[in-house]
C-alpha cells in the first residue's frame, strides 16, 4: 500500500536536486552575472587575466543560467514601432518612372508626347497626347512587369497597368504589396537589430509582432528617447543627379525632381532628380576616415551592381554635379571630375570625428527601408526597478514565513512536510525559470507569491482527506493511502482549470502579464509535482521509519 519503488524515489529526489542546482545561481545573482558576462567576453574578444578572474567567480561545473529580469525590475526601455510599409511604394514608383519613360520614348510616333502627372504616392500617372496610342502604350509598359511568385498570387505580376480617361496608370499589384510589406518589415527588423547590436547592450528583445510591428525592449538603457535615437535615425544615403542650385525652397521643382536643403550651408537649396543613381542599399562598407586635408570624412564602397551604375553614371556625366544626399539633406554636391570605376568614394563635409564615426555606423547598418511610427513607449528607471525588487523580496519572504507558520500550526508534523515541499516548490520555479530563460517581472513576483499561497492547496486537500479517512476509522497507512488517491481527482481538476487560464494569459498577454502567466503556470506544475510526489515520499519515508500506531494530521 504505502510503497514507492526505489527508482521512483531516486527519480523524485533527482528532480528536486536538479531544480535546486538550477535555482542556485539566482542566489548569487550579481556574481554569476559578472562571471557569465566575462565568459562571453572571453569567447568574443579573447582572454585577459582580468576576465579570467571574473569568470572564475562562479565555478564552471555549476549551472550558470539566470532568471532574466524584466524591464520593470531592471529598468530600461520598451518600444512598439509600426513600420510604415507604404513608404516603400513611393520609392518603388519613383524608381520605376525612368524605366517607364525610357520604354515610352521610342513609341512617340504612336503615343504622342507624354508627361508624368502628379498623383497619389503609390502610383505613376502618365498623360499621353494621342489617346488612340493608349493600347500600344499599355503593351509597352506592361512589358516592364516582372512575375512574382507567392503562395496565393501564382502568375501575378508586380505591377498593374491600366488606362483611366487618357491617362496611363501604373500601380503595384496587391500581391506585390503584400510581398513588399513583408520584405520591408523583415528588413526593418534586421536593421533595428543590427543598430542595437552596434551599441552593444545586454540581451535586447527585438521581435516582430503581427504584420507590420516591431517590439523592441532594451534593458539598462536610459530612456526610450535614447533608444529611438539609435534606431530611428534613417541614414538614407542616395546619390542623385543635380538639376540646379538656389536659395528658394518654394520654387517649382518640375516633375520627377525635388528640392532639398543643404546640410551645412544654410539657405542653400538643391534641385535634384528624385530617382537616385545609387542608394545606400548597394553600400557594402563604410568607415570613418580623413580626407586629403585631414578633416574627418567617411569612405564607402559599393557592391558590384552599385559600382557599375556609379561607374557608368560618372563616365557619362563628367563635368556635371551630383549630390550626396543623406536623409533628404545634401551633404555635398561635387562636380564629377572623372570616371570613378572602382565603386568606392568618400563623403566629406563639416563633420566632427564623432559625427563621422556615427555616420559610418549608420551607413553600415543600412538604411531603414521605411519610417517607423512609435505606438507605445515605456521607460522604467533602474531605481524604480530596484525598489520593486526590494519590496517584492520582502513581501515574498513575509508571505512565505506566514504560510509556513500557519501550515505548521494547522497540521503539525504533516504541515512541516508540506513546508519542505513548499520550499522545494519555490526552488523548482526558479530552477525552471532559469532553465527556459524565462523573464521575471513584477507581476511575475506576484505570481510566485500567489503560488506560495495556492501551492499548499493540494497538500491541504490531501491532509483534509486523510483526516476524514482517519475519522472514518481507517488505520494510519490506509488513511494516508486513501487520502492521496481520493484527493487526486480534485487536485488535477482544480489545477488543470487554473493552468488553462495561465496558458490563455500567456498566449494573449504581453510583457509583464506574460511574466505573470509564466510564473503562475510553472507554479501550478511544480506545486502539483511536490504535492503528489514529494510530500508523499516524505510521508512514506517517515512512516516506514516510525511505524506509528496512530497519526494526527
Amino acid at each position, binding site marked *: 500500500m504505502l510503497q514507492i519503488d526505489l527508482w521512483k524515489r531516486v527519480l523524485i529526489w533527482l528532480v528536486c536536486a536538479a531544480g535546486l542546482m538550477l535555482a542556485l545561481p539566482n542566489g548569487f545573482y550579481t556574481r554569476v552575472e559578472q562571471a557569465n558576462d566575462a565568459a562571453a567576453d572571453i569567447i568574443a574578444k579573447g582572454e585577459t587575466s582580468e576576465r579570467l578572474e571574473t569568470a572564475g567567480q562562479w565555478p564552471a561545473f555549476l549551472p550558470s543560467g539566470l532568471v532574466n529580469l524584466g524591464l520593470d525590475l531592471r529598468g530600461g526601455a520598451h518600444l512598439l514601432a509600426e513600420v510604415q510599409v507604404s513608404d516603400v511604394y513611393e520609392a518603388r514608383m519613383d524608381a520605376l518612372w525612368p524605366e517607364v519613360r525610357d520604354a515610352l520614348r521610342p513609341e512617340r510616333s504612336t503615343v504622342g508626347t507624354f508627361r508624368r502627372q502628379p498623383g497619389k504616392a503609390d502610383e505613376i500617372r502618365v498623360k499621353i497626347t494621342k489617346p488612340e496610342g493608349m493600347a500600344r502604350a499599355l503593351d509597352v509598359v506592361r512589358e516592364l512587369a516582372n512575375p512574382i511568385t507567392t503562395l496565393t498570387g501564382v502568375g501575378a505580376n508586380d505591377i498593374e497597368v491600366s488606362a483611366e480617361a487618357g491617362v496611363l496608370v501604373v500601380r503595384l499589384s496587391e500581391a506585390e504589396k503584400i510581398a513588399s510589406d513583408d520584405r520591408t518589415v523583415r528588413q526593418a527588423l534586421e536593421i533595428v537589430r543590427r543598430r542595437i547590436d552596434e551599441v552593444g547592450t545586454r540581451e535586447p528583445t527585438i521581435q516582430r509582432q503581427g504584420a507590420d510591428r516591431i517590439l523592441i525592449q532594451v534593458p539598462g538603457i536610459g530612456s526610450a528617447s535614447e533608444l529611438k535615437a539609435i534606431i530611428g535615425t534613417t541614414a538614407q544615403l542616395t546619390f542623385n543627379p543635380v538639376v540646379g542650385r538656389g536659395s528658394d525652397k518654394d520654387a517649382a521643382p518640375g516633375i520627377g525632381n525635388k528640392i532639398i536643403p543643404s546640410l551645412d550651408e544654410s539657405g542653400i537649396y538643391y534641385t535634384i532628380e528624385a530617382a537616385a543613381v545609387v542608394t545606400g542599399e548597394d553600400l557594402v562598407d563604410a568607415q570613418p576616415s580623413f580626407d586629403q586635408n585631414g578633416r574627418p570624412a567617411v569612405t564607402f564602397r559599393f557592391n558590384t551592381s552599385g559600382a557599375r551604375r556609379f561607374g557608368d553614371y560618372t563616365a557619362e556625366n563628367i563635368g556635371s554635379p551630383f549630390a550626396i544626399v543623406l536623409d533628404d539633406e545634401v551633404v555635398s554636391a561635387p562636380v564629377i571630375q572623372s570616371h570613378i570605376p572602382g565603386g568606392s568614394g568618400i563623403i566629406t563635409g563639416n563633420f566632427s570625428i564623432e559625427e563621422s564615426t556615427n555616420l559610418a555606423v549608420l551607413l553600415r547598418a543600412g538604411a531603414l527601408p521605411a519610417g517607423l511610427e512609435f505606438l507605445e513607449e515605456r521607460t522604467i528607471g533602474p531605481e524604480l526597478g530596484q525598489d520593486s525588487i526590494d519590496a517584492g523580496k520582502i513581501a515574498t519572504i513575509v508571505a512565505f514565513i506566514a504560510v509556513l507558520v500557519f501550515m505548521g*500550526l*494547522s497540521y503539525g508534523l504533516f504541515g512541516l512536510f508540506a513546508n519542505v515541499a513548499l520550499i522545494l516548490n519555490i526552488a523548482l520555479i526558479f530552477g525552471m525559470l532559469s532553465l527556459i530563460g524565462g523573464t521575471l517581472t513584477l507581476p511575475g513576483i506576484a505570481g510566485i507569491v500567489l503560488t506560495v499561497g495556492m501551492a499548499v492547496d493540494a497538500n491541504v*486537500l490531501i491532509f483534509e482527506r486523510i483526516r476524514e479517512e482517519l475519522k472514518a476509522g481507517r488505520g494510519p497507512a490506509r488513511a494516508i493511502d486513501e487520502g492521496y488517491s481520493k484527493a487526486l481527482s480534485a487536485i488535477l481538476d482544480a489545477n488543470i482549470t487554473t493552468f488553462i487560464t495561465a496558458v490563455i494569459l500567456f498566449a494573449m498577454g504581453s510583457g*509583464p502579464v506574460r511574466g505573470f502567466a509564466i510564473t503562475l503556470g510553472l507554479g501550478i506544475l511544480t506545486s502539483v509535482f511536490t504535492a*503528489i510526489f514529494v510530500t508523499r515520499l516524505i510521508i512514506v519515508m517517515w512512516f516506514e521509519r516510525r511505524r506509528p500506531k496512530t497519526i494526527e494530521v
Partner: protein
Amino acid sequence: MRLKLVPEGTSFDFFKLSKLWLGISALMMVVALVSFFLQGLNFGIDFRGGTTIRTEASESVDVGAYRDALAVHDLGDVSITEVFDPTFEEDQHVAMIRIQAQDDGEAITGGMVEMLKQSLDAVAPGIKFVSVESVGPKVSGELIQTAVLAVALAIAAVLVYIWLRFEWQFALGAVAALVHDVVLTIGVFSELQIKFDLAIIAALLTIVGYSLNDTVVVFDRVRENLRRYKKKDLAEVLNISINETLSRTVMTSVTTLLALVSLYVLGGDVIRGFVFAMIWGVLVGTYSSVFVASTILLRLGVKRDWSKQANTTGNQFSNIDA
C-alpha cells in the same frame, strides 16, 4: 493541538437562505453594472492611450505647482496625483502625472518629455522621471479588444473543460460563479475608481482560475457523494459536500490571503491595484463557489442515473501511483 479554523464535522445548511444569497449576489451584480455604466472604469493608459510619468523628488509634492508648471504646454487633460507608500524613504516624494493621448497616432515624443522635465524642474529642483510610459491610441484600442477576448476565452475554455469532466449543469454553475466574480471585481474597480490597466486583466484571469479551483473542488466532492448517497436528495448531498470541503476551502483561502496581504502591504505601490484585485477576487471567489455555483447547480438539478457506469469515471486519474 491544532489550529482549526473550521470545527470538525460541521453541518451548516447552506441552502436554507439560498434565495437571500442569490438575491444579494444579484443585487451586487446590478450595483456593479450600474456603476460600470454610469461612471465607467478609471482606465489606465494601456486602454485609453496617453502618457503617465512617475516623478520622484526630494521635496514634497505640490500638485498645484506641478499643474501650473505643465499648463504652459497645453496638453489637454492632465491629472496629477501624489503617491504615498510605506515602503518609500523619508525624502522620497512620488507623483504620477497622467496626460491624455495627443492628437497624432504616435506615443509621446522624446523632446516633449524633456520639455516637461525642464518645466517641472523649476518647481521641484532635481526632479527625476523614474518611469515614462506612453501608449498611442491605436494600440490602446487593440489592447482592450485583446483583454476582453482573453477573459472571454478563459471562461469559454473552462466551461468546456468542466462540461467534459462533469455534466453541463456543473459547467453552468461554475461559469455563473465566474461571471459573478468578474462582474463584481469590475464593479469594485468602477466604484472605487482604482486604475484599471493591463495588469488588472491578469488579475481578473487569476480570479477566474482561483474561483474555479474552489468550485471544482466542491463539485468533485459533489460528484463523489452523488454516487455514494444515491437515496439522498440533491440539496442534502450538496450540503454534505460543501460541509466536508469547508475546512479545505477556508484553509486555502486563508493561506492565499496571507500571501496576498503581505504583498499588498509590503509589495510597493506599483502592484497594489493588481494585488487588491486578487484579494477581492479570492474573497468573492470563495463566496461564489459555495453560494452561487452550488445554488445554481441545485436549481438546475443533476441527472443521477449514472449508477450503471463504471465507478472509475470520476477518478480516472486516481490510479496513478507515486
